[in-house]
């Protein structure tokens, strides 16, 4: 019983964390370059719909994922256009994007898949890792997931390496810290920020698609249900470091998995406590662990090269 509880919890933690990992890593990249995107929720919804639609239209979840990634980048491009080109405040643009993503995905769904409830949405199968998947305890915990789960886990070291070990990463960090210094050093700040916004949107789109074409195999309006905002929290809790962000997302996934299990075991404790617990824990940890803000210094501040 206890083992079943634990095995199920770990497996569910990975499943629940995966969309957060995608979206939060994307947001982290964007923020490291200095662009705050609070519209990630809307982008994930667009990705979730686009993934479902693309998958139904082409019959292949891989192509669906590609459509979702493209749609996520396109939605993020709206943010880029508004913030980087028209210099609208990033919070305003992000809130608008959230509403836009919710509206457009819901509307497009009704026009396409929703009007025809019979359409099958081809979804990712779980990977078959052969003997690994057969392992007694570890198998169901770690080796019976969708491929996208492993992709998400692999993304964190990849992004860490990219941000901390490559020249592009240095440029990204410079744009987030001191755009004027980056500009003086010959870096095209706007182009770097554009790139990061688009990559961030593509990842958020993939996170949404995970929900629709891996986890559920369906699209419903507002199915992202606040995960975009939790992804932003993960970025902050993870101190803008891809590994930290991954840990934060796994923490929230595990907390959610634990929460839904403990609820059923303790029907007398009001469910609100289970919902609040991870946040209280996370804030408590921050109070003790790290008081120093590692916020990219230029986050949210527009930069215009002198003319």
């Amino acid at each position, binding site marked *: 019983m206890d083992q*079943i*509880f634990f095995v*199920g919890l770990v497996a*569910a933690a990975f*499943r*629940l964390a995966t*969309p957060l990992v995608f979206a939060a890593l994307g947001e982290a990249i964007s923020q490291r370059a200095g662009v705050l995107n609070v519209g990630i929720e809307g982008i994930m919804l667009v990705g979730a719909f686009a993934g479902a639609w693309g998958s139904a239209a082409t019959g292949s979840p891989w192509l669906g994922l590609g459509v979702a990634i493209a749609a996520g980048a396109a939605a993020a491009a709206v943010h880029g256009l508004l913030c980087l080109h028209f210099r609208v405040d990033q919070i305003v643009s992000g809130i608008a994007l959230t509403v836009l993503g919710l509206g457009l995905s*819901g509307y497009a*769904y*009704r026009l396409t898949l*929703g009007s025809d*409830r*019979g359409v099958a949405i081809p979804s990712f199968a779980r990977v078959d890792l052969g003997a690994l998947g057969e392992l007694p305890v570890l198998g169901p915990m770690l080796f019976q997931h969708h491929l996208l789960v492993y992709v998400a886990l692999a993304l964190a070291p990849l992004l860490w390496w990219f941000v901390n070990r490559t020249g592009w990463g240095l440029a990204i960090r410079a744009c987030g810290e001191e755009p004027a210094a980056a500009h003086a050093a010959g870096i095209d700040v706007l182009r770097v920020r554009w790139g990061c916004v688009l990559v961030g949107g593509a990842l958020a789109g993939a996170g949404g698609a995970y*929900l629709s074409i891996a*986890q*559920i*195999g*369906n699209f*419903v*309006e*507002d*199915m992202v*249900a*606040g995960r975009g905002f939790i992804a932003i929290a993960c970025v902050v809790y993870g101190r803008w470091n891809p590994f930290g962000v991954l840990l934060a997302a796994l923490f929230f996934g595990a907390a*959610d*998995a634990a929460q*839904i*299990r403990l*609820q*059923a075991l303790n*029907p007398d404790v009001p*469910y*609100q406590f289970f*919902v609040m617990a991870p946040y209280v824990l996370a804030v408590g940890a921050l109070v003790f662990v790290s008081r120093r803000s590692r916020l990219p210094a230029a986050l949210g501040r527009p930069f215009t090269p002198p003319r």
Partner: protein
Amino acid sequence: QQELKVALVLPGPISDGTFNSAAHQGIKAAEQKYKIKVSIQENTQSAQIEAALTRYAREGYAIVIGHGFQFAEPAKKIHKRFPKTWFIVNTAKVAAAPNLASFDNRWGDAGYVAGAVAASVSKTGTVGHIGGIPVPVIQEYQEGFERGAKRIRPDIKVLTAVVGSFSDIAKGKEITLSLIERGADVVTATGNENVVGTIQAAKEKNVMAIGTAFDSAALAPETIVTTAIIRMDVNIDMAIGLVSSKKIEPKNYLLGFKENGVDLAPYRAFESKISDANKARIKQLIEDIKAGKVADLPKIR
């Protein structure tokens, strides 16, 4: 007879596949049946309710239907100002002279029968209910589900959990998976989109599900044993019918099995998998409920 103007104000989107879809289908059916002109407003937040109701009343709608208990207070507040309009609130218990009535379904009875079905078909002796957000009707359903299951099998274990959202389909699925992990082999869910997540999980894990509110057997014919249908269309049909015939009274109409406001869907694919004894037992239970012979039905809140 002149054409009646009817407004339906919904808290969610008509495409949710459950609560709001049901109302939408009901009004579509009524549109065929009665001589009415219909306007629908979707996704109305609680703070917009008063404005929405007022506006329809002001524009001379004869019937304004608020679909959800959250419409009760605003309707109570404004109905006197528009005596020519009938305000109907669904899934609430509110009434006031001269023109406010409510139609509520006996969700608790529906849950009771669903629990009985679940206990009849369960092999593991564990069944589960997943609520979206524990609003009164969901609490009633849950209470009924537990009592109905215990009536059939006193030793049955009923697991319950709450999603905390009506639209979080992914979490609905995960919660269901966690109940299945703990042995539940029949699951049921109440809410909106989260119900779809429960059905998905049941399908994936090859356990049985009992639908609620809205017959969506087509989603997973091999999984859905039956559905405890809440006939929102009947509420709407009755309301419009009573207003047209001027027989409506300012009271709370409570619709149960007897009034056809609650129903059990056919077993379909499970017809052959359920023993005739069990089928008879359920049928008898429904008859007993209609006859008022069941003592431990959940209290209406």
